[in-house]
């Protein structure tokens, strides 16, 4: 190329050649490694909240999961002898660490130490490395890790009762010194007996599942929705602040929302998935029939008949609306919808595809929670995300954007441009 150029008369400039470069000459700056870093940073507020709500042991669990995820990444790179070139190499490690961290957020803080180690390793070595690698995996690797430990250590990962620190013992309390449920009247209103620093309660979402259950042998069903909401569920504000049982990063709604906002404002995720997930869950919770005795069976829809449940009033209290709110904040929905289901690799490409995906996640979540043969499936929202991940190739195929100028009936005029002057 330079020799050809030298033969061109350049008006005294011959010999100089400008640096070669290809377009684009500007870039949005959102490089791969920033994507992974952004997801990792977005998970940090939830982890911090987990430390406050569930003691420093949360940090131990998360560190173990992250370290073992990085070990899985090291193993994958050693076996495959491949790594990305340039600055993206850092990104691969950040991605592995981010997966380990996200996986840790789904675990209850009381799990034994092998659980995060096994799960973090499975997430990266199997969920990411063996199932396609970065950019090609179908299922979210953190959820693969979660599913693995869920099957291996099911009693620890999905116990019937979860511990969380009591008032005045946040951050520094001992999570294993738990007090029984009968002393609990809401986080702010109750203190545990002397020597006890944490509460041991079922997750609100598991309690809620009782009002969808038709089986006779499943414990005491609440006599009314009011009794459920007032006596058996914690105050709703507790479920928002995260003073309830659950995974160490899935209970504190503001912290997760902060992470989600970080991702949204940076342009790393689109709003379509979270919004459709929340909307679908809210709508379905509003209309899903409750299996509870209600005032006038068979009456016309409305507050009196008990359907739709969202309109249900008992003693003047909108208990039906409360059920919807508990569905939104009582389980792992926020973590899944904002930080896990938005993962770029395992979600559809197009906006329309993301709508379908979000609706599917919401629908499957509600099926897992409210079906009347086995309601309250532990980790229902995670199974829902895994299920919809499976459908992503199909969704992508069915929701392609229409390309400009390919509408079925293009208004074609005579091809004037090919006509010559008469």
């Amino acid at each position, binding site marked *: 190329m330079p020799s050809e150029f030298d033969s*061109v008369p350049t008006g005294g400039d011959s010999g100089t050649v400008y640096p070669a470069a290809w377009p684009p*000459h500007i870039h949005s700056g959102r490089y791969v490694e920033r*994507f992974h870093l952004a997801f990792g940073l977005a998970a940090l507020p939830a982890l911090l909240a987990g430390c406050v709500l569930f003691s420093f042991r949360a940090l131990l669990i998360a560190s173990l999961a992250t370290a073992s995820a990085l070990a899985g990444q090291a193993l994958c790179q050693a076996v495959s002898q491949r790594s990305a070139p340039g600055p993206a190499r850092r990104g691969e490690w950040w991605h592995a660490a981010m997966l380990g961290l996200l996986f840790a957020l789904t675990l209850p803080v009381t799990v034994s130490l092998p659980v995060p180690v096994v799960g973090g390793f499975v997430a990266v070595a199997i969920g990411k490395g063996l199932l396609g690698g970065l*950019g090609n995996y179908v299922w979210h690797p953190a959820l693969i890790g979660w599913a693995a430990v869920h099957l291996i250590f099911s009693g620890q990962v999905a116990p019937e009762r979860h511990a969380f620190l009591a008032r005045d013992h946040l951050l520094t309390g001992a999570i294993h010194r738990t007090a029984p449920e009968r002393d609990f009247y809401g986080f702010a209103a109750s203190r545990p007996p002397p020597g006890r620093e944490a509460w041991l309660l079922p997750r609100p979402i598991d309690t809620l599942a009782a009002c969808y259950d038709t089986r006779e042998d499943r414990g005491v069903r609440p006599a009314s929705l009011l009794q459920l909401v007032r006596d058996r569920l914690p105050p709703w504000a507790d479920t928002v602040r995260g003073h309830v049982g659950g995974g160490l990063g899935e209970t504190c709604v503001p912290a997760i929302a902060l992470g989600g906002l970080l991702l949204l404002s940076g342009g790393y995720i689109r709003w379509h998935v979270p919004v459709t997930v929340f909307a679908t869950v809210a709508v379905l919770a509003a209309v899903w029939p409750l299996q509870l005795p209600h005032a006038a069976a068979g009456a016309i829809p409305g507050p009196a008949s008990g359907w739709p449940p969202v309109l249900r009033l008992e003693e003047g209290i909108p208990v039906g609306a409360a059920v919807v709110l508990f569905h939104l904040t009582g389980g792992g929905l926020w973590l899944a919808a904002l930080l896990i289901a938005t993962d770029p690799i395992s979600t559809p490409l*197009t906006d329309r595809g993301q709508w379908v995906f979000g609706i599917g996640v919401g629908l499957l979540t509600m099926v897992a929670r409210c079906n009347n043969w086995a309601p309250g499936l532990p980790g229902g929202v995670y199974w829902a995300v895994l299920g919809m991940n499976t459908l992503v190739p199909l969704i992508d195929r069915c929701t392609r954007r229409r390309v400009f100028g390919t*509408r079925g009936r293009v*208004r074609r005029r005579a091809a004037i441009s090919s006509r010559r002057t008469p």
Partner: protein
Amino acid sequence: MALLNTRTSFSGGVFLDEGKSVTQHRPFADLPTPERLIVPLAQGNELPAESCVSPGQDLSAGQPLAVSPENASPRRSPPVHAPVAATVVDNTFVDTPYRDRVAAVELRTNAGAIRPQAGVPEGLPAWSAAELLQRARDGGIALPEVGLPGGARLDHLIVNGLESEPVQAVRLRTLIEHGQAVVETSAWLGGILNARRVHLIVDRARRSLLARLRAAARGTPVRVVSAPNKYPQSFTPLVVRAVTRREVPCGGQPEDIGVSTIDVCTLLALQQAARAGVARTWIAVTVAGDAVPEPANLRVPLGTTVGYIARSVGARPPWSRVVAGNLFAAPALRGPGTVLTTHTSALLFLRYAPPAVRDPVGCIRCGLCQSHCPVGIDPRAVLDLVERRRLDEAGQRHPAACIDCGLCDYMCPSSLPLMRAVQRSRRHALGV
């Protein structure tokens, strides 16, 4: 707001920091005429016109250098003229931003030669459409052939005053300095081409400019419309859709759907050719970039080398790249001997570290390329098919609709060569 703007806008695209805060306020200035000009005989990718001068010949300003035979193919460049009074040195070759080694004529300019001024405005002539096309071609302006007797009627003539490309401001300056002339010429051109409606489209954010143009257009058939200046709104198919709601067929021309577009700079050159018989030999170009101390909007004679412009504006090397035109999609120039053509509207000397010189890594399926694509192509899928040599399948993804805006490359976190893949499959699909 993007949701509300979909009627005149398009889905995809990106609102940029346009980088026009300086260039938009710089009035056009004439560059001092260089001693040597190497006038290319083709402006873009078309076949060059045929030189009709010999070494040693003296030329006056506006005299033809190269002619285009009667009934030449539309792919042949229109005639080329001497920008100033000059002596022919030789017939030679030169690089343009769009093509290497184009036939050219090297000139030594006469001392004190300046830009030929348009004569006394004497009103715009009443031409027929065929006469207009011929005169425009003689003046070095190739217009699409529309509005001819016997042809289909032209529904919309759109004068494109949008300029969504970063930094460059020549269309904006043209509208600011010659708004009245633009409106008059638009009405005149619409009348000759027998267009049903004539539109002048301008950036929606330029409120005072819009108001002035609307005032100027009062009582004329010209309708001044506005669109948000989202990149790449100023590209022809998107302008057509914004104004008419019609979509240029994939791989087709606006003329196929009864629409014709012309940008304001070409329109003004056409006005000069019609009023004063001045051929298009001067280029309006924004010279900017972080290596240029004083960005400027310049009129330069056809055949000025980039090296001469760099010295004239005091651009200080070293720079990492010199780009003629759109930062998203234009190639970097190879050397100071390159000359600008009438297709060029910006010359940018950039010092910053090249951001996109990164090795491509695996796609992470973020979807940013296809969600920002203004025409709805899935560049990631096209790249995948091209890499696997399945070009026929890639052709089914409609790469011919691509408008070369380069947004996919701009967005891609993995630095994948998406635009090149789409262009590759477009060449395959169109058989060129």
